[in-house]
């Protein structure tokens, strides 16, 4: 038993952060004493208010933009940057100084995530920060808010869980861990967000979850937040007669969320205004988006409403006459959401492919297809064999074309609307019915905005004190690319082989695995390897060489690289090494090059510097 007083869960979200905590000293078994940190933040110049969520927006003000004391926080005098509600609101008038979606940039493979690149495309003279720095800043804000409330139990001395999307690749996880270390968090573990949502559900059931699921259940977690969609499959398994949870698959990283829906509605309404000759500037479009969000929530919540007025206020003092009145109807909301984002599609549907053009400006790789149900169909189909390897697990439809979920857990602010939850359930059950399978049921959830933080704090608490754990290990197998020796053919790339370094499901803290193949590394020179991952190849063992593979099974990730320091060796010498892989206690993937005798080891880094 640890002596640390608090177990802390931090949801470091794309659009919001939240911090939940469990008081270890006053929690026993299923009786958990849990709280939520009120987060002081600037809400207007010179005004600090507490909010349950910290908007993940960072504003870099001009030195003359504010009276310097107007940016003070209770714990700090700050002049060059601040996060939270005021930061987000300023984006409406001065977007070029606002850093947003830093988390999506953190997992963007084509940019250097340690370089000051945000705000993206800012003109000269505007300071920039790196995605890593922005993430660390939000964590620092939470740390300071916590320390002010609990000065004798500082955050850096507690057990801390920080959540990441299940779809985060090893490099993005490593960067998240680095951001946490930067603010001084030492006792750190990373947790996938859909798992955190399921932990929150387990905790809320106070032990009754074992009666609500049974062996053989496959729980689909669908998490649609402000900016991202994240999916996971978690099976209910059994060990020594006790029910367990095993995460068997995670979905791709999809930059698509509630903000896209509000924006789509705003553009629809803008189109109506355009048609009558009313033009909106950027500020008004943002105000319109706010208005559409509120109107959407009312229309989804109150079934008797058929239309809700939306007013874009004038920017100047002449409110009457200068404001633009329009309205949003139920039909419009339903059309945009139901046909645009949650279309009723067959299980064979697939998201439209992203067409990459070489000349596009470097930006976030937003999902090309807004159809969340199409992404879902692709995910379930790709994972049709996900339960095949589970011992004692007889999936009723093992030879079906898609994995049959038996229960669905929703998460993320978008699913506050019961209409949208029912829609997704209906679409899934349509697929199941067509396959002759029983319908999936919905697991009841409470705080869709806060459950990731709550589940993370619960996990931080039970991790060292026993209690239910979701097993699973890595949700991908990983490979290095080896160019096979052979006569060069002009115009053809040399054939590539893949060597399996990390098997699917390698668990954190387990023995490291070493591929027997040796590599010659040149001393003093950086050596790069192409790096690959697969979310479906569950049976590849360490050391396996693959020559042919279906393109959709394996995707290329960022390169990995290492440099052997010269030290006692001469620059240019070649040293034979083996590559070893392990998942650390923190939950990050660690690759090491071992010398032949195993006496020396060099860390192999993920290349987070982007493409050259």
């Amino acid at each position, binding site marked *: 038993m640890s002596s640390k007083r608090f177990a802390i869960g931090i949801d470091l979200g794309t659009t919001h952060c939240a911090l939940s905590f469990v008081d270890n000293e006053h929690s026993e078994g299923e009786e958990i004493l849990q709280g939520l940190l009120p987060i002081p933040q600037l*809400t207007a110049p*010179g005004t*600090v208010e507490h909010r349950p969520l910290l908007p993940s927006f960072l504003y870099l003000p001009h030195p003359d933009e504010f*009276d310097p004391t107007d940016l003070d926080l*209770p714990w700090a005098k700050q002049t060059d940057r601040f996060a939270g509600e005021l930061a987000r609101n300023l984006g409406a008038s001065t977007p070029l100084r606002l850093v947003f979606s830093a988390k999506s940039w953190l997992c963007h493979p084509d940019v250097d995530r340690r370089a000051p690149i945000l705000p993206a495309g800012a003109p000269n003279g505007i300071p920039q920060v790196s995605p890593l720095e922005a993430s660390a800043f939000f964590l620092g804000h939470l740390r300071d808010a916590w320390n002010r409330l609990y000065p004798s139990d500082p955050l850096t001395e507690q057990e801390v869980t920080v959540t990441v999307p299940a779809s985060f690749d090893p490099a993005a996880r490593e960067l998240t861990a680095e951001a946490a270390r930067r603010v001084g968090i030492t006792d750190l573990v990373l947790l996938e967000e859909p798992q955190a949502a399921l932990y929150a559900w387990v905790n809320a059931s106070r032990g009754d979850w074992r009666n609500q699921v049974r062996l053989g259940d496959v729980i689909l977690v669908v998490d649609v937040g402000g900016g991202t969609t994240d999916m996971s499959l978690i099976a209910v398994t059994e060990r020594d007669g006790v029910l367990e949870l095993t995460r068997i698959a995670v979905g791709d990283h999809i930059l698509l969320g509630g903000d896209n829906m509000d924006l789509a509605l705003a553009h629809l309404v803008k189109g109506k205004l355009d048609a009558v000759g009313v033009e909106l500037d950027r500020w008004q479009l943002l105000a319109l988006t706010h208005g559409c969000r509120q109107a959407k929530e009312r229309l989804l919540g109150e079934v008797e409403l058929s239309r809700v007025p939306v*007013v874009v206020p004038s920017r100047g003092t002449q409110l009457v006459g200068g*404001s633009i009145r329009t309205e949003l109807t139920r039909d419009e909301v339903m059309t945009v959401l139901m046909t645009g984002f949650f279309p009723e599609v067959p299980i064979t549907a697939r998201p439209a492919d992203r067409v990459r053009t070489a000349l596009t400006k470097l930006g976030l790789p937003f999902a090309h297809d807004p159809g969340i149900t199409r992404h879902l169909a692709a995910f379930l189909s790709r994972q049709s064999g996900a339960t095949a390897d589970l011992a004692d697990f007889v999936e009723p439809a093992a030879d079906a074309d898609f994995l049959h979920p038996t229960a669905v857990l929703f998460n993320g602010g978008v699913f506050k609307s019961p209409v949208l939850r029912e829609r997704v359930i209906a679409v899934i059950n349509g697929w199941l019915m067509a396959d002759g399978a029983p319908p999936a049921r919905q697991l009841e959830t409470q705080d869709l905005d806060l459950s990731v933080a709550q589940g993370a704090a619960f996990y931080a608490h039970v991790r060292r004190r026993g209690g239910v754990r979701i097993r699973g290990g890595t949700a991908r197998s990983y490979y290095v690319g080896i160019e096979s020796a052979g006569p060069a053919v002009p115009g053809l790339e040399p054939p590539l082989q893949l060597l399996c370094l990390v098997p699917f499901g390698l668990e954190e803290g387990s023995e490291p695995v070493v591929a027997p193949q040796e590599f010659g590394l040149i001393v003093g020179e950086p050596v790069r390897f192409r790096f690959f991952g697969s979310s479906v190849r569950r049976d590849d063992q360490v050391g396996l060489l693959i020559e042919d593979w279906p393109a959709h099974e394996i995707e290329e990730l960022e390169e990995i690289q290492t440099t052997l320091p010269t030290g006692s060796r001469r620059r240019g010498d070649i040293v034979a090494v083996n590559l070893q892989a392990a998942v650390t206690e923190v939950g990050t993937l660690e690759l090491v090059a071992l010398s032949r005798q195993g006496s020396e080891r060099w860390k192999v880094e993920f290349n987070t510097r982007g493409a050259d």
Partner: protein
Amino acid sequence: MSDQSLPLLKRLLLAARAFLRIVQDREQAAAWIKIERQALLGRSTALADTPPDAALLLLSLLQKEGRLVDFAKQDLTRFSDEEVGAAARVVHQGCGRVLADYFRIAPVRDEPEGAQITLPPGFDPAATRPTGHLVGEPPFSGRLVHRGWRATEVRLPQVGTGHDQSIIAAAEVEL
């Protein structure tokens, strides 16, 4: 005053009666607290200037969220009701948000408007005000015309000490 000549026994009986009333009846207790407070103030009403800071803060919140100052300052004579109505939605939504975010507001009386209610002796006239045919001694009986509002909680934001509160809304210059 003749009251000061009350003998001890009479005063003891009076004290016992007051004790019972205060214990048995909330309204009586509240009335007693007022009497004590007035005694403390030496029966003179203390008038204090309301500090402007909280008022200015509230005004800036109502302006920021609900554009209240813009709305009230504008001359509406040449506008149609439809135009006024559209702007009123902004004011209504935003000011409603301010009330919801910074106050907890409950009706003073739980009875529905129109109900017959009785005001016992010692009722708090600041919370419930009798009007109309106001003669004789309480208990008064009458019809509830307005339920009243009571702020049960105020949680205004913290403001930096150096912040110029007199700026209700900063002028904006788009560069």
